[in-house]
């Protein structure tokens, strides 16, 4: 992911956080996206290595931010970023699916997460899937 692409992705994150800055943004009981969550999401995007495309981003009802890498409707990887350093993630790959939890140190994408992103994007031959 190039520097300019990261800046565009971060701009999208800030726009999303601004749209969801108040509780109830979903018309129901969604929690607001606070500054800690936004900062964690920005840190994660900044730490994406070259070759990983920019993720799609979406708000979650509990105030987290979802970063999604989507190859097709049957091949998706979704990563949830909250206010602490633990990341929830899950993937769908045809009939295969799974989930996991990883820790993010603010600097480097966890190896397991990176492996699943590569696999989703079809770069799986170069990486060993760790699930």
């Amino acid at each position, binding site marked *: 992911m190039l520097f300019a692409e990261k800046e565009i992705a971060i701009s999208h994150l800030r726009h999303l956080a601004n749209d969801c800055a108040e509780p109830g943004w*979903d018309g129901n009981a969604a929690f607001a996206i606070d500054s800690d969550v936004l900062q964690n999401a920005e840190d994660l995007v900044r730490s994406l290595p070259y070759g990983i495309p920019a993720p799609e981003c979406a708000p979650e009802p509990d105030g987290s931010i979802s970063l999604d890498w989507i190859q097709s409707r049957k091949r998706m990887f979704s990563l949830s970023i909250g206010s602490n350093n633990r990341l929830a993630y899950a993937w769908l790959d045809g009939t295969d699916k799974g989930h996991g939890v990883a820790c993010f140190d603010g600097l480097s994408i966890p190896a397991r997460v990176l492996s699943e992103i590569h696999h989703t994007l079809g770069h799986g031959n170069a990486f060993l899937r760790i699930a």
Partner: protein
Amino acid sequence: MSDGEDLVRFLTQSSQFSTTLVLVKPATFLPNPRDQNTSVSRHGREPEDKLWAIGQVAAGSRTLHGAAIFKAVNVRAAKLEVVPDEPPQRHAVITGWARDADPVLQKAKQIEAALLIAGAAELLLVK
């Protein structure tokens, strides 16, 4: 509710879907943090005027961007259940989302289920 019954989740944030990929993002289906349910309506894509009328009521003052259309069987394929929850008329909720003592692991399990629904849902945008 039969497996073939149509369900709709209305989209009030532009970030809930991708027009490029023509699909609804998984976070759209995650449950409300207070009651662990996801609100839906029992309606399909037709008749479209009625669909959007229900959507406008559901959206309230927010902008209605579109709808995610799927079937009850897609919910059950994700090991969840959908049950009527009126009023309002034709309202239902997706229940049975994973629970775990570890909230992050619980979230990961819920995302896995949401991915399955997202993969099956059809995106319909307001014209």
